[in-house]
């Protein structure tokens, strides 16, 4: 199979997948490296990537993280089951699309405006996007292909994504169950022993205790909080 879309880094501002001739898969089929294949073939390759590459991670988006629709709970339960079957799998959420400036907590969340930061910091080599709105998924997936060597899997409830290495379309909870079964089959074939274990809890940074903070905690920025009228700061970069 000719791999049209492969893991990056493809370089700054890479050519987009649609302009390279990749078309979305028709109903009932999937995309694998930019080629239209059967859903099972794409799932098997994705499962092998998740089982053999470092730090497999699931990035759930707002459509599954928030309790806004009746069928969300089923999908969420299925995602947790899938995560528990992938050895050492983590879940890093993308709860909203607000840019996290000046600093994102890369261990706790991923952001579509700079997804590469979370992926590079956590050394993630295989990831699943699920429940991210399509326009932000396209943005993130292309950015990840541009700047990282992460294998991306898009589990999309609509038409799929050209920029992902493997893209499954029309996702329901049953599709996730099917993917889970394929992961277990591939895991057994590879001879990996694993007891289903839920991913770890979110390691959010502790809230700053402002009472215990001193100007030295602000490092090179301490001058910003210390200057007084008429004061001359001599030590600058």
């Amino acid at each position, binding site marked *: 199979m000719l791999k049209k879309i492969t893991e990056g880094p493809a370089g700054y501002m890479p050519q987009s997948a649609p302009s390279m001739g990749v078309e979305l898969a028709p109903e009932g089929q999937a995309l694998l490296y930019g080629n239209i294949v059967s859903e099972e073939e794409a799932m098997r390759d994705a499962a092998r990537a998740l089982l053999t590459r470092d730090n497999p991670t699931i990035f759930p988006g707002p459509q599954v993280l928030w309790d806004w629709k009746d069928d969300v*709970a089923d999908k969420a339960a299925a995602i*947790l089951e899938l995560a528990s079957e992938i050895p050492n799998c983590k879940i890093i*959420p993308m709860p909203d699309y607000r840019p*996290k400036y000046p600093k994102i907590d890369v261990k*706790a969340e991923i952001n579509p405006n700079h997804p590469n930061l979370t992926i590079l910091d956590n050394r993630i080599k295989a990831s699943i996007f699920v429940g991210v709105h399509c326009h932000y998924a396209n943005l993130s997936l292309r950015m990840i292909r541009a700047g990282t060597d992460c294998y991306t899997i898009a589990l999309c409830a609509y038409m799929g994504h050209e920029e992902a290495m493997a893209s499954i379309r029309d996702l329901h909870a049953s599709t996730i169950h099917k993917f889970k079964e394929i992961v277990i089959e591939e895991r057994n074939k590879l001879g990996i022993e694993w007891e289903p274990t839920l991913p770890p809890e*979110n390691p959010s940074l502790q809230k700053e205790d402002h009472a215990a903070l001193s100007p030295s905690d602000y490092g090179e920025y301490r001058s910003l909080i210390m200057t007084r009228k008429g004061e001359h700061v001599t030590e600058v970069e």
Partner: protein
Amino acid sequence: MGLDIYKINPEFKDIMPREIIELEENATWSTKMNKPRGIKELPETKELLEEHSLCAGCPEAAALRYVLSALPKPEDTVIVNSTGCTSLMFPHIALHTVHSLFGNQNAVASGIKRVLEWRFPDTQKDVVVLAGDGATVDIGLDYTLQSFFRQEKITTICFDNEVYANTGGQESGMTAKGQVFKMAPTGKKFDKVPMWELATTSGCHYSINMTASAPKAVAKAVREAILIAREIGPTYINLYTPCILEIGLSANEGLGEMKDQDKDRFASYKHISPEAEAYLKKCKEEGLL
């Protein structure tokens, strides 16, 4: 829309970041409060502005925090903003925000308000325009005044920093006469546009000119303006938030500058139409203020 969209899926509660959990549990959503929201809750509760990328000590950021803390019903509020320093903050807010083109924010807000009234006839939805002085008074003056003429039920808040700050310091219509900036070296030739008076003449039921030096006063004005806009008609708040970089002040001097201007260019101006005044009285009796 509504508070439902802020409910975390129970399955994923333990993998959500702390800030999002706090947003659900500890933010002052109006349905969880038994009194009107206000700045008093700021220290203990989760703010709707997570963080921002404005300069250290920027009074505009402080003013936005006051405004957000005073929205009567944040979960049912849509904020329309425009190009400028303020547009750097709006993506960080945990509310619905719409970024319009430079200047047409009041036209966009008019459309949103009309659609919301049609789509949610039983729910009170507030539309608040937050833009800088360039968008409100220079480039968008036509749209701003036209929305007042049409008596659109929206609140317009102008963060007046008297300069085009994020493009390097060009003079705006709101710049004071004689003021010199980096890109206005000969000084401004004409007087500051009295936008708050234009708003009154154009049919605003509530028009106020103030600085952001007193948080309580800002919060009160915002609450009053939004309540009047719900029932009576357009309201306007002109809020002085100086650009400390462009006028050569340090990060800790913004408040002092605003306090100085309280007695000068931003000496108190407040206009309330008689029907708006009667409505505010009613709101007070009902405990909305």
